[in-house]
């Protein structure tokens, strides 16, 4: 198990060396996106419209943060990962359209390991650890698509040493979640 400290924007060579099970810390800029934001990104692609933010070399964080508006702008209260599984069907199209290099979330994503190959890694952040995550988010840079509601909007966050993140699916096709699931499934079958 290796430990890496990466700076955004991520390059292909940053993520190609990562192996499932490694630990990663990210510094720089990350963008939150959930169901509605993923859907809108794909919709705009369909209509050939440009996005108000760049996804090239980007790190997407599956997170619907709890924010508070203060006199000095937005403040992060609590910002842990959301269930990535809900977005898995949209990931292959998203990765075809944009050079996203890392997706942070929880719970893994079924059927995306191929789409991630040589392009992108899936990093698991401990679900529910939202107060811990908020401490590592140093600044809310901006917000897009607030019309989708606070959880579904795209929040651009500056983070420092964001982690520990476990490489759940690497860019070589290894998927810890799938391995664990297959073992559990076998165990279940043997009990029948």
């Amino acid at each position, binding site marked *: 198990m290796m430990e890496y400290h990466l700076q955004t924007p991520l390059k292909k060579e940053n993520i190609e060396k990562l192996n499932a099970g490694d630990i990663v810390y990210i510094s720089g800029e990350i963008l939150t996106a959930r169901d509605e934001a993923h859907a809108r990104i794909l919709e705009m692609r369909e209509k050939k419209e440009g996005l108000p933010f760049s996804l090239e070399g980007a790190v997407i964080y599956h997170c619907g943060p709890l924010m508070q508006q203060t006199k000095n702008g937005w403040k992060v209260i609590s910002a842990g990962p959301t269930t990535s599984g809900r977005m898995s069907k949209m990931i292959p199209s998203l990765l075809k359209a944009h050079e996203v290099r890392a997706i942070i979330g*929880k719970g893994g994503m079924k059927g995306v390991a191929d789409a991630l190959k040589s392009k992108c890694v899936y990093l698991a952040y401990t679900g*529910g650890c939202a107060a811990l995550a908020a401490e590592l988010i140093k600044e809310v840079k901006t917000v897009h698509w607030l019309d989708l509601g606070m959880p579904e909007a795209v929040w651009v966050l500056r983070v420092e040493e964001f982690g520990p993140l476990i490489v759940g699916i690497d860019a070589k096709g290894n998927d810890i*979640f799938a391995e*664990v699931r297959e073992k559990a499934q076998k165990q279940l079958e043997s009990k029948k």
Partner: protein
Amino acid sequence: MSSKISRGSFIRSIVDLLRKAEIELPDDVVNALKKAETTEENEVATSQLQAILRNLEIAKKHGVPMCQDTGIMIFFAEIGTEFQPGFDLEAAIREAVILATVEIPLRPNAVDPLTRKNSGNNTGVGIPDIHWKFVPGNQLKITVAPKGAGSENMSSLRMFNPTETGNIKNFVLETVVNAGGMPCPPLTIGVGIGGSFDAAARLAKEALLEPLDAPMEGLEREIFETVNALGIGCMGLGGSITALAVHVKTAHCHTATLPVAVNIQCWANRHSSIVFRGDE
């Protein structure tokens, strides 16, 4: 006979109750997580459990919700037959949720199911969800259980044939395997058996409120041990602790039915209670 409590102080108490539920876990849940951290041998799983315990410390220290999914508010109220509030309790609870959303703050989670428009204040048609039960006496006990979506989405209900009691355990296991890491294990698993289509789900949800250190019996223990042998582990990254507890609640059902509901709860088994006393 009427309650001593004013509407204003009732609302204040409910806001405080919500705050407590969002920031701190009950002792039995914290103890179960600590025990899991010491017994788990998988390195990755241990790192995840350590993050959870550290997160709880930070949430408490800063007075912020432990999880950004502050849930939808589910209330269980046990009202004494002699308890007379003198004001509309449901309206007051609703007002408390709106206030708490701004004050704690809570993430606005309540949306119209079809338009997906967010109400912005955690209330809406049927939300907060309040369940009333009459009990003897002159007290009012209110429990709030903020329920997050990650684990709720992994829950399941099936109407079995009456002769299929032997399939219940497997149904729970299938539900847990299918959920994998998505509901944020280590889980509390509530199983409702019997009642009706909707009553089974209610029983399963009530089972989540049982103390985690309460002894597990028969079917509970059997499911618990088999679930933990699946190797799903904390966050689905592998490990020996997938569930902290399994609790089963049953009710009589129609002779031709066997409803079984499995309500999945993430590690953040949040709930908190308060008792209001009426006049002596």
